[in-house]
């Protein structure tokens, strides 16, 4: 199974090669190659997922030795093998991820054939997203951090290429560079983390790491004075922070919306940014074992969720709203992992991928239709684009946490976990507080978006007039993704556990339980914490319903009924609004303070060192020494080599040549005469000798 | 198995009671008068008759019944002409040159297998001997043309020599498949191996005619034929004596008996070439599918030789007929076309055939198509 699973990643890779080399020459610029490839991946991934559904459990690995490294000695002495072994790991998480990613990617590929139709560099677009799909699927399939990291970087590259896809727009280029450089910070740290892992365990294989952590090996090793596990955990978390756009490295994701909308949907909502969370989930045992990292993760997630949600309120660009909501939701997932709500976190990853992809594609549909991203120029599109409206509305309900939709299930569980965490560890009240606040704000700004886009009167008559529903290739993906946004897919008809006892859907929970068992983090709750959890979940249900309802209500009276004037609130909260509008001045902080004040000065210092010390002393000094040596050697060369040896040789040769030239008459026969005389003499002596 | 060296030694044995030149003269005379001269003479008559038929004329019909003695009349006319050497020409070479041609083509008769029992000398390098002695023709044409002190002659001679030298390569390469198959250069043995009888057993070495040994030899036969045609300066390769350009080419200045020798040499060469095709590819003296020595009753050896001789002659004359037929069918080539055809057409094809035959020999363990069909081995 694991070997066949390799095909899943190989199909898009082959499609990439074909597209990159021959795409332009193929009919339709070869889009069908990419689409067929990703559908092929989907077809291969489906049986694995089906096996999970029927058996409740899948597990398979397949490994090859990539290279044999001499002398790698693990500090923890767990694995003294020096071979770098890479391979494929198929377990419950992988199966779900593979299915989700291939499904989303297939639908988005299909959507793209309509959305990108007629674009310049159409074939390259498909080449890039094929390569991206290969990277993402390879990452999911990896059974070790090394190939995981390689795929991770591959995705980063594709993200960079695709954000800058409209390379004629300066903003797109800047955004792509910003995204690449920002994630680089996290990636570097992540790589340090992998190096640390090799140092400690001598392996990066997930299963080996789980086993090692379970057996408690290397829990007291330190790296540079820090406990090794904490160091590694923190570095891995930084990788996530970069990739999943968490505070404080979240600044690149909104700008990444410069890319084509399908890219935003696929890479910057559904898959790549979720890869960071997936990393956290894969490394969860290590984070847990390090004790100190998980709370940090939880705080980072909570703060990110809240800050991003707040910014989303004031955004007027439909994609920016979705971008901030993505950051916010990612924050939820990270927070979920941080508070130990591992399963809900992963569940939110999957549900979010579906509804966020749907939202982005819907926004793409809208943008494609009205040719603007500014919500202030939209409005009243409900009748013009019924399918888009319906699907987007369903997805919005899901993200807002309305019962009966997928988002509610996962978010409610995360919030419940957060609440339980704070109740168990007294003092961490900020985490659930921020979580619930974010839930309310999310509902608010999502409905604000819906109202501004689809309801009310048309603010721009011209654009409204031209708006139209999109072709089937674009709407079918929307409908499928919207269908996946219902709670029944993951948990039950409503998503509320007490209600769903009547008609439970348990495959996801079972799968996650299996996965937790494999990773050695199966929960064995004590009776009192069981009680706390039960209590917390009940409370969380009430609270989340309440805040979601509140958010929707406020949004409705403000933007649907216009009972409250949004402008007056804006004026009322002047400084706060400005702060939010400027995204807490993060960009200015990074650019103005960190880079210009810090990094640039440091760079100048280095340049000065280079100029004054390296150039003056080393380079110029060497030059002076060389000059002295040169003059000595030059004299030697002139007198001894040139005069005596070279000229002398020439004179000798010329003299010899003069002597020999006397025989050089140019007459063949004379040469032969000489030859014959020599032969006669030789034969004469030969005759003498023979006698 | 008559070894070449033994042949030479046996010659010495014969020279016991006559001076060497006497035997040489007698044997040469015998060959020429018994075979070459009648053939050469008759060939001119036949050629004229065939030409007449093809052009819807009657042709020679005055001398003898249906003009059959025309060639004799021609010969008498030729012999009675003045022996003329052009002014400024080189008398010695002018006299010598026709002899080269006659010697070259007539010596080849020595190894032609007229029948199993009628072969001048079945030397073990027969094929090479055949190729070697016919090379004497080229210097003959070249020297004769030079000695004529005539520009047309010289151009014709140069053309003839370059043509012969060039086409010798495809010809030799077209013979090579046969050598590959039979594993011998001895013509008698090569012919012997082409026997095939439907009555009774066939020895494992015997396969049907080499032309039908495998597809490559089939094409090889045509290559040999075309190459031979060019070597004998026949139409469509008669550039050396192209009337419209060179008057009559290398033999422009020759008259009388010397011209007769040239003509004789040419016709003998055609016969030798046809006989070569017959012996190497068309089964020589074998009657197709019949071995007259294995009929169940013994025939006198003389009768066998007689029948085989006629079989050989029928085949050879059929090939000769094709040569004459082509003369009135095909237009003449240009010089560049001629050379291009040799180096760019025949030569690669000949190589292809050699390789193909080698491949066939390797794949089918030397069995011929006929043996495979008959299910031998």
């Amino acid at each position, binding site marked *: 199974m694991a070997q066949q699973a390799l095909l899943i990643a190989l199909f898009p890779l082959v499609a990439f090669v074909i597209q990159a080399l021959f795409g332009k020459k193929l009919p339709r610029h070869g889009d069908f190659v990419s689409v067929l490839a990703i559908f092929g991946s989907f077809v291969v991934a489906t049986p694995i997922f089906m096996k999970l559904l029927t058996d409740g459990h899948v597990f398979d690995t397949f490994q090859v030795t990539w290279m044999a490294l001499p002398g790698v000695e693990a500090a923890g002495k767990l694995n003294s093998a020096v071979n770098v072994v890479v391979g494929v790991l198929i377990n419950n998480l992988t199966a779900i991820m593979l299915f989700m990613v291939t499904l989303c990617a297939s639908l988005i590929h299909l959507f793209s054939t309509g959305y990108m139709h007629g674009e310049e560099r159409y074939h390259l677009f498909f080449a890039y997203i094929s390569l991206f799909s290969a990277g993402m699927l390879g990452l999911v399939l990896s059974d070790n951090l090394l190939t995981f990291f390689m795929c991770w970087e591959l995705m980063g590259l594709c993200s960079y290429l695709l954000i800058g896809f409209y390379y004629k727009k300066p903003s797109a280029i800047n955004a792509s560079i910003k995204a690449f450089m920002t994630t680089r910070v996290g990636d570097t740290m992540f790589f340090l983390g992998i190096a640390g892992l090799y140092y400690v365990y001598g392996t990066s294989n997930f299963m080996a790491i789980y086993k090692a952590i379970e057996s408690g090996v290397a829990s007291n090793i330190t790296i540079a004075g820090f406990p090794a596990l904490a160091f590694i955990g923190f570095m891995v978390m930084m990788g996530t922070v970069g990739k999943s756009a968490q505070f404080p490295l979240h600044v690149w994701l909104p700008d990444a919306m410069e890319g084509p909308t399908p890219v935003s949907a696929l890479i910057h909502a559904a898959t790549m940014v979720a890869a960071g969370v997936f990393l956290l989930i894969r490394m969860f045992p290590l984070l847990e074992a390090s004790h100190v990292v998980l709370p940090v993760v939880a705080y980072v997630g909570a703060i990110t969720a809240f800050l991003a949600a707040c910014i989303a309120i004031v955004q007027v660009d439909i994609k920016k709203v979705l971008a901030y909501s993505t950051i916010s939701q990612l924050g939820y997932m990270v927070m979920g992992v941080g508070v130990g709500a591992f399963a809900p976190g992963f569940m939110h990853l999957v549900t979010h991928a579906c509804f966020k992809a749907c939202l982005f594609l819907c926004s793409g549909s809208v943008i494609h239709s009205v040719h603007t991203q500014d919500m202030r120029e939209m409005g009243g599109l409900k009748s013009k684009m019924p399918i888009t409206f319906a699907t987007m509305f369903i997805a919005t309900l899901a993200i807002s946490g309305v019962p009966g939709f997928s988002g509610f299930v996962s978010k409610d569980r995360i919030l419940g976990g957060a609440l339980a965490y704070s109740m168990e560890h007294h003092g961490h009240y900020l985490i659930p507080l921020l979580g619930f606040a974010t839930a309310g704000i999310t509902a608010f700004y999502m409905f604000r978006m819906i109202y501004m886009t689809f309801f009310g009167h048309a603010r721009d008559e011209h654009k409204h007039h031209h708006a139209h529903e999109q072709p089937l290739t674009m709407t079918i993906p929307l409908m499928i993704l919207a269908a996946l946004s219902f709670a029944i897919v993951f948990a039950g008809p409503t998503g509320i556990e007490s209600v769903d006892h009547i008609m439970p859907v348990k495959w996801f929970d079972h799968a996650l339980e299996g996965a937790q068992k494999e990773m050695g983090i199966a929960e064995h709750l004590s009776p009192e914490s069981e009680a706390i959890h039960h209590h917390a979940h009940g409370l969380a249900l009430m609270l989340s319903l309440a805040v979601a309802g509140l958010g929707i209500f406020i949004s409705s009276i403000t933007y649907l009924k216009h009972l409250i004037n949004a402008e007056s609130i804006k004026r009322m909260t002047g400084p706060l609004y400005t702060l939010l509008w400027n995204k807490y001045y993060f960009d200015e902080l990074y650019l103005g303070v960190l880079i210009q004040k810090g990094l640039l000065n440091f760079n100048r210092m280095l340049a000065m060192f280079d100029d004054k010390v390296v150039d003056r002393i080393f380079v110029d000094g060497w030059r002076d020494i060389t000059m002295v040596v040169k003059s000595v050697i030059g004299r030697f060369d002139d007198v001894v080599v040139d005069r005596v040896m070279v000229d002398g040789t020439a004179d000798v040769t010329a003299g010899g040549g003069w002597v020999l030239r006397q025989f050089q008459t140019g007459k063949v026969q004379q040469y032969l005469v000489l030859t014959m005389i020599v032969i*006669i003499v030789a034969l004469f002596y030969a*005759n003498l000798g023979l006698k | 198995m008559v070894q070449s*060296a033994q042949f030479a030694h046996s010659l010495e044995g014969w020279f016991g009671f006559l001076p060497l030149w006497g035997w040489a003269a007698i044997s040469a005379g015998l060959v020429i008068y018994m075979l070459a001269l009648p053939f050469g003479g008759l060939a001119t008559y036949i050629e004229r008759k065939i030409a007449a038929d093809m052009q819807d004329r009657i042709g020679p019909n005055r001398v003898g019944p249906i003009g059959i003695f025309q060639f004799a009349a021609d010969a008498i006319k030729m012999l009675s002409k003045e022996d003329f050497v052009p002014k400024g020409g080189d008398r010695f*070479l002018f006299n010598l040159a026709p002899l080269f041609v006659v010697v070259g083509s007539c010596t080849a008769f020595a190894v032609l297998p007229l029948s199993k029992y009628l072969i001048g000398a079945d030397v073990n390098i027969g094929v*090479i001997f055949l190729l070697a002695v016919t090379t004497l023709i080229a210097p003959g044409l070249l020297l004769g043309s*030079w000695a004529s002190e005539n520009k047309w002659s010289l151009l014709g001679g*140069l053309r003839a020599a370059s043509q012969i030298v060039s086409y010798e390569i495809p010809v030799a390469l077209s013979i090579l498949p046969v050598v590959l198959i039979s594993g011998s250069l001895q013509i008698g043995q090569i012919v012997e191996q082409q026997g095939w009888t439907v009555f009774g057993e066939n020895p494992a070495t015997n396969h049907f005619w080499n032309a039908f040994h495998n597809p490559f030899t089939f094409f090889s036969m045509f290559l040999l034929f075309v190459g031979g045609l060019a070597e004998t300066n026949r139409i469509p390769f008669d550039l050396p004596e192209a009337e419209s350009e060179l008057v009559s080419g290398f033999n422009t200045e020759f008259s009388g008996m010397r011209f007769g020798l040239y003509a004789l040499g040419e016709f003998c060469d055609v016969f030798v070439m046809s006989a070569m095709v017959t012996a190497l590819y068309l089964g020589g003296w074998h009657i197709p599918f019949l071995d007259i020595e294995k009929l169940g009753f013994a025939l006198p050896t003389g009768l066998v030789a007689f029948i085989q001789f006629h079989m050989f002659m029928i085949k050879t004359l059929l090939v000769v007929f094709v040569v004459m037929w082509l003369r009135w069918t095909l237009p003449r080539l240009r010089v560049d076309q001629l050379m291009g055809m040799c180096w760019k057409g025949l030569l690669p094809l000949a190589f292809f055939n050699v390789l193909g035959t080698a491949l066939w020999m390797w794949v089918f363990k030397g069995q011929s198509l006929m043996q495979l069909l008959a299910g031998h081995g």
Partner: protein
Amino acid sequence: MNKVLLLAEILTVASALIVGFHPNILYASVFLLFTFCGVAVMFLFAGADFLAGAQVIIYVGGVTILILFAIMLTQWLYKIKLADIRNKMVVPALLSAAVGVFLYRALHQMVAALPPQTPEALEKFTATPKTAAIGQALLGGYLFPFEAITILLLGAMVGAVWLARPE
């Protein structure tokens, strides 16, 4: 004890003398042809049957024709003198005669160092066909020289074509 061989040797030497002394280069090359033929017969009696055939094909059919071509191309078309032998012939004659004599004497004395073959062995050697043996030797022990010579021939052919090409 063979008249034919004696005749061939006489032919060889006589025509070689003409090659050496005849002032007309065309005659010299015609008699060179006879020398080649005589040498071929000598080969035949030395048991080199294949070599004799090759000698005729290569020298008569190839080299002589080439030489005649060259003579005619340069001397007929461009009226170059045919008779161009030098006047000073004493020194070359002495020199070459000395070389011949010394060479023969040296070889003659070397012969004594090698054991002679019995008459039966000589007879058998002469009677044995050599073609198959030469072929096997060329593709066996002499494979490398054989391949080298094929490359040499190819190079010579290409070089000759290149040299003689029109401007």
